[in-house]
């Protein structure tokens, strides 16, 4: 047989040999230096969500205008932070993946994915974003699949079933790629799952290592559970960080199960409500710190671990900055896990101080069947939404829910696979039900008094643990925060405003009403020398640039 060679094909072969992989491991290591791009969920392995772009400044931010909108064919909130690679934006629409022209919003391709109808999710069938390595995107789906997708064509390459969606496991986190592995862990803390963090080979999807966030029999920490380990939760639903100097990857672990009744799980319940530092090559635990031992208030430690090199008592320190759902701002040494400091970020009544880093419970803060009033409430004083750290200002910025509370009451509940497993009841002292600080941002008029909880941006000095300034909103906020090298801070909230603050003073510089809550982490990028800022509102993505 003598097949005639297509001339165009010969040309393609020659040209393709000249091409390098799209996003190499080195590019990911140096992502923060590629300010025109946004290569990981948090903008780089340090997870500072801080950009070096300087075109948009405090002086001209008032000239921002809407450039384009991506209206997703999807009814739930958009909690994804897009990736941008050399002029192409990759984001999600529900569990679909979309490639867009980052300058105009026009669609290059869509990879459609419909999760299995028996998948369970406590809080929306969402995904928070993607990861990229080479020419491959990675999507974690709500029915607990991890899918590799060709970034050039939108076609699947492999599809790994990570866990059982029907049993309550779901993947909502944006994966994290380190070297040749892509790392994820399952959500499902309200379904009695057994949590883990697992790494998969980027080329084949084969599992490379797994760390059990609820230790199995024989594993260190198993003895902190009693019999309750079997449905212990320990979910993963926010992307971790990575320190190449120590080759450690850091992940926050969710609440123990059942959420509101620890009678079946006496002990600290490691590694729930903890940060774990794992060897990125093997998944071996290097250190851990538990923010809330034996939690009964649903205080997942699923916050983004922010890595920062800061001055500490006159010496440089490799720190980890962490505003936790339990109402405290922690400074840890990221090489060792050493507890350096913790200070309140909002009203709290459960903690009387720390003993060598271990929280001391106040006398009347133990859960009971009658109920106990606890500040903050079950959604915490902050939650999964990304904070930001600016090396320029030295400040750590986080959206806080102030004055939130719940009355937590234990209840009996038998575990049933695939069903919600919380074993408790929540109530409040607020008049009516509309005031409670709930997970879902329901669009309705806000009627809260300030003492009935509100959202606020707070700028913390890591060296003192105190906030320098705050920017109050009347309603709550689930928005992440972006800072830039021109000392701008972008964020939003449930009121529908997307706005810019002066990162040094908290002064309002610009705002735009987008008609729905911002629930993703804002990000910025540049195409052809023009800087853009992107934020979601409801299910849509809005992109701004200067006039």
């Amino acid at each position, binding site marked *: *047989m*003598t*097949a*005639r*060679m*297509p001339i*165009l*094909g*010969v*040309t*393609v*072969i020659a*040209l*393709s040999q*000249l*091409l390098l992989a799209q996003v190499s491991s080195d590019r990911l290591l140096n992502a923060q230096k590629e300010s025109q791009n946004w290569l990981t969920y948090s903008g780089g392995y340090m997870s500072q969500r801080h950009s070096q772009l300087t075109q948009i400044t405090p002086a001209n931010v008032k000239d921002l205008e809407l450039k384009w909108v991506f209206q997703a064919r999807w009814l739930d909130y958009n909690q994804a932070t897009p990736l941008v690679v050399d*002029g*192409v934006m990759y984001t999600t629409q529900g569990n679909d993946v979309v*490639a867009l*022209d980052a*300058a*105009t919003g*026009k*669609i*290059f*391709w869509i990879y459609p994915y419909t999760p299995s109808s028996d998948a369970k999710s406590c809080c929306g069938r969402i995904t928070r974003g993607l990861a990229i390595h080479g*020419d491959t995107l990675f999507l974690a789906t709500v029915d607990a*699949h991890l899918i590799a997708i*060709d970034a*050039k*064509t939108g*076609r*699947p*390459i*492999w*599809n*790994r*079933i990570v866990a059982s969606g029907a049993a309550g496991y779901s993947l909502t986190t944006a994966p994290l790629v380190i070297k040749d592995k892509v790392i994820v862990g399952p959500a499902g803390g309200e379904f009695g799952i057994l949590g883990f963090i697992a790494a998969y080979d980027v*080329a084949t999807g084969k599992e490379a290592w797994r760390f059990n966030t609820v230790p199995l029999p024989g594993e260190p920490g198993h003895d902190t559970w009693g019999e309750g380990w079997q449905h212990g939760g320990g979910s993963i639903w926010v992307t971790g960080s990575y320190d190449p100097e120590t080759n450690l990857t850091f992940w926050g672990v969710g609440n123990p199960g059942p959420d509101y009744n620890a009678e079946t799980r006496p002990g600290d319940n490691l590694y729930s409500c903890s940060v774990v530092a794992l060897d990125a090559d093997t998944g071996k635990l290097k250190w851990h710190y538990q923010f809330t031992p034996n939690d009964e208030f649903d205080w997942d430690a699923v916050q983004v671990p922010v890595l920062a090199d800061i001055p500490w008592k006159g010496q440089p320190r490799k720190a980890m900055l962490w505003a936790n759902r339990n109402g405290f701002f922690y400074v840890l040494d990221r090489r060792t896990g050493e507890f350096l400091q913790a200070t309140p970020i909002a009203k709290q009544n459960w903690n009387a101080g720390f003993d060598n880093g271990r929280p001391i419970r106040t006398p009347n803060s133990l859960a009971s069947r009658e109920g106990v009033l606890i500040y903050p409430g079950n959604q915490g004083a902050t939650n999964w939404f990304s904070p930001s750290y600016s090396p320029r200002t030295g400040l750590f910025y986080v959206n806080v829910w102030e004055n939130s509370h719940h009355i937590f009451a234990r209840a009996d509940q038998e575990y049933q696979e695939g069903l919600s497993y919380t074993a408790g009841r929540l109530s409040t002292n607020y008049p009516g039900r509309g005031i409670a600080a709930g997970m879902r941002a329901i669009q309705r008029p806000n009627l809260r008094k300030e003492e009935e909880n509100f959202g606020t941006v707070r700028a913390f000095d890591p060296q003192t643990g105190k906030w320098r300034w705050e920017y109050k909103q009347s309603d709550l906020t689930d928005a992440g925060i972006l800072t830039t090298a021109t000392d701008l801070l972008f964020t939003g909230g449930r009121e529908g405003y997307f706005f810019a603050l002066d990162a040094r003073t908290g002064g309002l510089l610009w705002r735009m009403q987008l008609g729905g809550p911002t629930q993703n982490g804002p990000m910025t990028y540049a195409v052809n020398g023009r800087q853009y800022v992107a934020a979601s509102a409801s299910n849509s993505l809005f992109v701004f640039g200067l006039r």
Partner: protein
Amino acid sequence: MRRLALVLAAVVVAAATAWGQSSPSSLPPGDEAAGAAIVTGTGKCLTCHRILTTGSRLGPDLTDIGANRTPEQLRASLLDPDAEILPENRFYRVVTRDGVTITGRLLNLDTFQVLMRDPKDQLRSFVKSDLREHGFVQASPMPSFRTTLSPQELADVIAYLGTLKGVVAQ
């Protein structure tokens, strides 16, 4: 009524005759392994096509071609590639103001913009008003294999392509 039945019967007979002329059933039984050797080797199909992560992104991805195209359609595409080019496989050609010509897979088209994947695998967008000329490429870049594949080789290739059902979750 009788007349209508006769007309319908005539149509069915005519369609069956035409089907028979182009149906793979007129080919010898295909050997999937031999077909794989042609597609991935001697036939150089992956010069333009792709299976999973092997090959070029220029032409249609073959990873799940067996799930989406019938043997008859595959045979028609191999013998007469210009007869039917699916919209998602169309090529577009643009000439920039400085005279550079780029031909690629059309990905999106609107009043103002053209989006394509170029031969370097880059996702590109062009503003029409910035182009000297632009338009669809009418012919498929794929050659006909009518004279270059024997009936047996054609059957082998079709048999192999039929096994390509896409990525399976595991």
